């Protein structure tokens, strides 16, 4: 069980949160202007890196706020937590 630092509530157990997949997947500005392939990119295609990953979580049993997390998908180490609208941490070397 992960321990996640909700940007509002502080450190809480993973069981209070729900996972929201990759962060920063932008809704196309005009969905009707993009091709089926590009629409499929938005709908289904996702990064799936072995390493640092920017992802979304929601504190569903707590403050119900969505936020972003930078987490390593092998060690599960959480290296950053930030609110929606805030920029992701600079790419690590």
């Amino acid at each position: 069980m992960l321990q996640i630092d909700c940007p509002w509530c502080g450190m809480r157990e993973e069981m209070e949160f729900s996972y929201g997949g990759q962060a920063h997947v932008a809704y196309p500005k005009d969905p009707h202007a993009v091709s089926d392939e590009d629409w499929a990119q938005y709908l289904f295609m996702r990064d799936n890196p072995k390493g640092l990953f920017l992802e979304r979580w929601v504190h569903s049993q707590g403050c119900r706020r969505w936020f972003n997390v930078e987490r390593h998908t092998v060690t599960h180490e959480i290296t950053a937590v930030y609110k929606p609208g805030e920029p992701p941490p600079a790419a690590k070397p």
Partner: protein
Amino acid sequence: MTASTDRVSPLENWTARFAAASATPVQFSIREVAFATHINLRVDAAAFGAKVRAVLGCDLPVVANTWTTGGECSAIWLGPDEWLVVAPDGRNESFCADLRTALSGVHHAVTDLSANRTMLEIAGSDARVALAKGCPLDLHGSAFKPPQSAQSLLAKSQVLLQCVDANPVIRVFVRNSFAAYVAEWLLDAAAELAASRNLDTPRIANRLA
């Protein structure tokens, strides 16, 4: 045709079981606090907290997971722009109306949830341990004390915990349909602690105090 205007709380029929489980209140007690006014309030507190205060006589806490009290009310932090206002029974309609008036023209939401939830109040030396059996929060006396509150899980139910006294007295807010489950769960937890009194309950309770 008229109905009885007597209200029925979700744990109306549990009074006797609660009383039995509270036989030694210094160790554990449990009761339902029904029918209090619960108002969910969404607003930008930094900008408009004063308007709210003018109605409620109570500041909205801006520190996460805390509660404040003032006038007839307590306000419990639920999120960065969300509070639960708890007031005595019967104040729901007037407070809702007054809040709406005070906040008119401001982005806000005032929602009466007085009948949405009930409240269990548990107290005594075993209370923290009983909760620790199913709640992943750090409930140690140094970590969870007035004026703290927290939304979390108790076993398989979402709950709002409010520490109203360090002694401790802890209020467990639970939605109506989960109330029986949470009550059953708490009674079961407390009974186990009582049965284990000669084994380890005081020692563990003491370590969480």
